[in-house]
């Protein structure tokens, strides 16, 4: 299929990109890695009048430290996220979840910020961002603002980004010394998650000191499994304790039915996979 006609600009700085976005108006779309947008354009499910390609904005790529946080450029590819030493050391959960995204070709093209801004509830990076209290740094003509992940994901494919705003960086607090696991459940290797569970824990001795758990595709937005977290904190990391805590995984979820799973099965999976993710994270 061939997309409908559109104008195309490829700015080289964030300032130029923001200006291009403002100029283009409401029918503009931002092109990051294109792994979701290009198929949608080709099937003519969307017909933006202008594409603003961020591929040439060098300042949006890469990972750096800023005090107690990592700053991940929105255009950092999944492939680079998976290999990044800072992420491996301070935000292991993000690397683990990213390594399950689609296939190698997609991971080379797709970007961290693109996935988050696309806000597909079956996308694997939303739950880790939420669980880790990431902050979305956005730029618009009115300047810069920071949106916590807990407020960023609004609905299916909908974020708190306003018209004319660009997601530029993601700030992730450092979770140095934490252990993490992303448990993805899907039918074929390159498919989206039916359910996914992101878990990070800080364990001292055998006791779980802190826990962060996020759920993929259990609602129209990623879900923070706070009930599970509360039930884990202070517990010995025993199979029984973890299993009991995982029973809280469905609290606050609103899973839907599709060809792969009905709601009841998704709820069941959320509990089983939470138990497995936490167990794996605890080592």
């Amino acid at each position, binding site marked *: 299929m061939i997309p409908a006609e559109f104008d195309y600009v490829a700015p080289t700085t964030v300032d130029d990109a923001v200006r291009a976005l403002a100029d283009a108006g409401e029918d503009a779309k931002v092109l990051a890695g294109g792994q979701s947008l290009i198929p949608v354009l080709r099937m*003519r499910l969307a017909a933006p009048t202008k594409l603003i390609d961020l591929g040439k904005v060098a300042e949006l790529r890469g990972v750096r430290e800023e005090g107690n946080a990592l700053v991940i450029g929105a255009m950092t590819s999944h492939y680079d996220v998976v290999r990044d030493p800072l992420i491996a050391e301070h935000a292991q959960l993000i690397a683990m979840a990213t390594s399950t995204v689609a296939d190698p070709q997609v991971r080379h093209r797709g970007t961290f910020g693109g996935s988050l801004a696309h806000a597909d509830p079956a996308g694997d990076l939303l739950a880790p961002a939420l669980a880790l209290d990431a902050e979305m740094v956005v730029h618009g003509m009115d300047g810069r603002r920071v949106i916590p992940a807990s407020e960023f994901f609004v609905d299916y494919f909908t974020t708190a980004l306003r018209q004319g705003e660009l997601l530029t960086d993601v700030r992730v607090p450092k979770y140095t010394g934490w252990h993490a696991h992303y448990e993805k459940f899907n039918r074929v290797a390159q498919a989206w998650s039916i359910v996914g569970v992101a878990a990070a824990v800080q364990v001292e001795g055998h006791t779980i000191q802190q826990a962060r758990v996020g759920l993929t595709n259990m609602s129209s937005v990623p879900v923070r499994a706070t009930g599970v977290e509360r039930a884990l904190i202070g517990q010995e990391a025993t199979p029984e304790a973890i299993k009991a805590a995982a029973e809280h995984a469905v609290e606050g979820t609103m899973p839907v039915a599709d060809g792969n799973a009905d709601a009841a099965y998704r709820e069941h999976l959320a509990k089983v996979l939470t138990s497995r993710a936490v167990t794996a994270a605890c080592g």
Partner: protein
Amino acid sequence: MTTAAEPSLEVGKGRLRKEDARLITGRTRWTDNISLPGMLHMAMLRSPMAHARITNIDTSEARQMPGVLAVVTGADLADSQGSLPCAWPITEDMKSPDAPSMAVNQVNFAGEVVAAVVARSAAEAHDALEGIDVDYDELPVVLDMAEAIADGADLVHPDLGTNKSATWVFDSAEAGTGGNVDEAIASAEVTVERTFRQQRLIPAFMEPRSVVVDPTGEQVTMWSATQVPHILRLMLAMTLGVPEHKVRVIAPDVGGGFGGKLQVTPEEVITFLLAQQLGRPVKYTESRSESLSSAHHGRDQLQKLTIAAQRDGTVTGLKVELLADMGAYLRLVTPGVPILGAFMYNAIYKIPAYHFSCTNVFTTKTPTDAYRGAGRPEATFAIERMMDELAAELGMEPLELREKNWIKHEEFPYTTVSTLTYDSGNYEAATAKAKELFDYDGLRREQAERRQRGDTVQLGIGISTFTEMCGLAPSRVLGSLSYGAGGWEHGAIRMLPTGKVEVITGSSAHGQGHETAWSQIVADRLGVPFEDIEVLHGDTQSSPRGLDTYGSRSLTVGAMAVLAAADKVIEKAKPIAAHMMECSPDDLEFSGGKFTVRGTDTSTGITDIALAVFAAHDLPDGVEPSLDADATFDPENFSFPHGTHLCAAEVDTETGQVRLRSYVCVDDVGKVVNPLIVEGQVHGGLVQGIAQALFEEAVYDESGTLMTGTLADYLVPSAADMPSFTTDRTETPSTTNALGVKGVGEAGTIASTPAVVNAIVDAIRHFGVNDVEMPCTPMRVWQAIQGGAQSAAGPGSESGGGVGSLDTQGGAR
């Protein structure tokens, strides 16, 4: 080290394929990369409705759009498009609706073409689709086969008066080949009855269909991504009334077909008509979504089986009652696909009483037709599932039950209850080898241990001891089944003056490796180097006769024709060799490319003779100056590959996830020309069969819209989803062809599906499970373990991931 005088044999060598460099790098000619001077581009508007009357089409806006040369609707083509051919009227009273390439008054499935735009560029053609406005008056959809044949059902084609196309019956008592099955069931010590659903599948070939038509020469030339250039040419002539000699069809390199390109398509006809009308070359290439929604689908049957047996395991009767979904129209061989299965339900077993009936049903879905195996995978699945179910009922080891009933190797040739004569086979040998490679006994022990300790992960072992009929086909058998053509194949050899050889074959390769295999065969027969042979195919001008490639027929039929042509070349060369060496033809021996005067070292090479014939200065009297020869081969019988496939599946009982732990298959495809090609066919076949068991299904929603209209939703697996296969062979030569070969193209697909499902059911049978509907999704497996109702995996629309329901109007909204 071999010498030119004593070349080692080519047949049996695992040669890398000649064609792969160009295919893998894409440095070749596919239909879509053909670009002709003045060529125009076409796009199709497709119905989003499954069943509706077309009340109005307004094309005025589209006609005004940039670059547009023509916009046509069904009304414009009604007089010229004819009806798409169905070559297989299975009964005399079969009901077959008119099948317009472009819908005229009514659409009968979502994806049917309702209009087309021809423009200067493909982008302009697609843009202009949005300028076409179609008004539909919705009709009730017909989606469920059982409901479709109930009294008072809504009708797909009201003028036919019914949704039943035909019912085809075989009964062994009536045919005189066996007993009465109802009596066998009534008097049986044990009967087992099951109903299986063969879900609808999509062939999902890699290269979408594409067609270019050039009307500017004396002949109209059509390039098409087709498996069947010869059939296509004939059918264009018969459908459109164009003189056959004024049409040339070329299938350039074609990126897979799996039966999905065994078709004469609406798109080919429409492109042909528009190119003729405009007097300029026109190209049409479908999108992946168009391919998934409108190219023909496969399978889609409801299978009710009743098997009768004695307590000791002796099978006494088998009754098979099918409903087969035709979709909205009968395409090229649609009605015959389930009928091919009729001969295979008895499989490798001696079944004394057999009854088969199949009712073909119209629905408002995409037409079905051939898909890898075509009727035989369905049959093999059902009988191999039933053998496991019967074994469970009897408390017998399932391999022992099979062995008790199968045809022993010393009983061949064996005529079955469904009238076929199997020429050869050795089920004992293949099974023994497979068991050993699989560590059958060790896995059975592990299964028992896991069950004993209530392990979360349960292990199941699935068996499929399959055979199939392929090498389509003896012409007289096809005639007896009312098929519209014969089953012969044609081949020719051209001896070039420099000693090089052109081989012409009527088989039309689309990924099979004919160029390599045919070169190996001809190299041995003529004694010329492998590299000196070029294989030509897929162009009705260079390979004028043929019946093309499907049904694992190329080697067992097509290569036999080539071999026969090579023998004729040798016979033609003989008197010339005798003349050159001044001896009697009776004193000549031909070996290694040379005629030698018996008892001497005087010899002359066949390539030297080719040069002498070219010069033609000194030939014997009455001998034509040509060594070229052609031959047409009609097989005496089908070919019957068989094998034993064993699958070990781990089922995660907490999630229902299935992991294939090991897969062993020992196939018997007779003599092997190229083991590397055989290995490739088996691997690809296994993946396609396993995909039916675990992943793939064409799902429609309640309005008749295809929900799996992209490859994000229709789950074609990749290597990452497969275990490492252990493949091996036994070699029981076919006795009905000169090389002793059997077909291999479909075997893996036919055999593997039941092996996987049997393994899953075996892993969780102790939970009370005796079936899991395909594809065995984690949810279905988990629900089966829970004892819950089998879910039909109803499609939803709200979840993330995947693309879900598509607008099928060629993207126009």
